[in-house]
């Protein structure tokens, strides 16, 4: 790193200033991340709840969680969401990023702004909008359905339609930022690669397959993993749009944990065990992204 071997005339003062400047963030991270984390680790091995003292129960919480039908259901549901959202979203954002590259300056600027607006909207507001659009009684989609001579559809009463609409809302919200990340990746491919390929007589398809796709590999991984870790923690959309229904078919792990927390029927040790299981998956995925970022960085420097 560039700071190594750097001698400043005020070294001792550095020391104190350094500590003073990092302390606020360290204290905050300690209290609001490390303390809850260690508490979760410790409590997950007990039958702790808010009302009574806790006793150690070994790995029983983890066994019970893994056997719990509802938790399993929420895992299956979230995997369906991942499967519905990630491939489709990646393909669409990549294609759109490609189109952005070909657009004139003004058109491109307009399109970038337009797709980015939904990404600053909250999940709650997005849910309200899509509930309205797919409303049974007088939603705009049911109007179109009836115009086509069909009966109104109760979208949120059907497990697959409900999942589909939640997935669609989530994609609508994330489309802009992911497209721009893809676009940045495309713009980052040196033009000289394409020029060299043209000299060698490569056609459009060859350039796409041999240059664009391989150069975008890291961007694809970055987008896929951040999209997956985000989707695995989905809460606002299903919470507001379906409350996990019909019959728990849109219940997500985050909702499962929140509902347990609210109901207090379960021991908190049990709930926290479920939360820790989620961390193993999400933490592994995010560590992969971070390693990728670091390796990219070290190439730059």
């Amino acid at each position, binding site marked *: 790193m560039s700071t190594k071997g*750097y001698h400043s005339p005020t070294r001792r003062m550095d020391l104190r200033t350094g500590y003073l400047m990092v302390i606020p963030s360290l204290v905050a991270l300690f209290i609001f991340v490390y*303390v809850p984390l260690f508490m979760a680790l410790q409590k997950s091995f007990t039958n702790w709840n808010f009302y009574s003292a806790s006793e150690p129960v070994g790995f029983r919480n983890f066994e019970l969680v893994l056997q719990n039908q509802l938790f399993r259901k929420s895992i299956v549901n979230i995997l369906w969401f991942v499967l519905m959202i990630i491939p489709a979203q990646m393909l669409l954002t990549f294609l759109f990023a490609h189109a952005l590259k070909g657009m004139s300056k003004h058109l491109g600027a307009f399109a970038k702004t337009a797709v980015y607006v939904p990404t600053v909207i909250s999940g709650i507001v997005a849910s*309200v909008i899509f509930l*309205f659009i797919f409303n049974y009684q007088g939603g705009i989609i049911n109007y179109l359905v009836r115009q086509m001579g069909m009966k109104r559809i109760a979208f949120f009463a059907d497990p697959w339609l409900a999942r589909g609409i939640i997935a669609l809302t989530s994609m609508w919200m994330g489309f802009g930022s992911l497209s721009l990340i893809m676009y*940045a990746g495309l713009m980052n491919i040196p033009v000289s690669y394409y020029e060299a390929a043209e000299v060698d007589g490569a056609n459009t398809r060859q350039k796409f397959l041999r240059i664009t796709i391989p150069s975008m590999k890291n961007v694809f991984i970055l987008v896929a993993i951040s999209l997956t870790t985000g989707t695995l923690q989905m809460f606002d959309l299903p919470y507001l749009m379906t409350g996990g229904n019909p019959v728990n078919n849109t219940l997500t792990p985050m909702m499962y944990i929140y509902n347990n927390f609210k109901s207090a029927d379960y021991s908190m040790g049990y709930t926290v065990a479920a939360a820790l299981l989620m961390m193993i998956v999400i933490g592994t995925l995010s560590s992969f992204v971070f390693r990728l970022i670091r390796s990219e960085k070290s190439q730059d420097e």
Partner: protein
Amino acid sequence: MMKTKSRHSLAIGVFTAIALVVSAISLFPLVWMIISSFKEAKEVLKANPLRFFPTVWVRENYVKLFEETTYPFLQAMQSTALVAVSAALLSVTINSMAGYAYARLNFRGKTLLWRLSIFTMYIPGITILVTSFVVVNSMGLLDTYWVLILPGLASAYSIFFFRQFFLNMPMATEEAALIDGATRFRIFLSVFIPNAKSPYVIMGTGAFLGYWNSFLWPAMTVTNTQYLQVMQVIRSYNNMYSNAYGVVLAGSALAALPPIIVFLIFQRHIVKGLMISGIK
């Protein structure tokens, strides 16, 4: 020659069509929400695209919204604004200081402290949700502004972002000032901050949007009307006004406005920040 020319204009046509269709899909739901919030109650749920605009433009949904007493709307907007603005300011303050120290200063244990900070990126919110509640509860913070503001302030990502930016500034930046005898903190204030507008805007708007849009944490920690956040009250309206959905739409439209305005003002920086995060 002719062939390439017609091909070129065909390409322009295709790109224009894609841009317009995708932009329309992105913006239509928001426009539809805003337009419908000005319709009479009986017209709101009679979606008719042929009658895109309200037959009569009415304010009744907004009037009802402002008269709502169980969950006062304007109070929620004010409380959310207070939380989101102060959190954004505090957050860039502590994260940029840390980023600067990790980038530019030498002190014992720096690597360890840096690693401890960065490791928190691996810990998803879902894992510490319940125990964070226990922590703030034992600190007596429930139903205060503090419980809404404090827990999200320090961000590993933000520290990382600031550090990266400060690392890339040339060494000469502080040398002249150091020779003049300025302290490190003074140099940070007078030399580094003025030259780091971009990361401050990017991280500040990011924090603002995160706080403004948050729902789950407020729903767990505040119940007193005074502290209710705007997304909480919209969720309640969604349950209360299923027969007067225009009110929910009006509330949502107003709640979506500050994020959109902030985005439009800082658009250039936000998009740039996103592109950097994509590449690096």
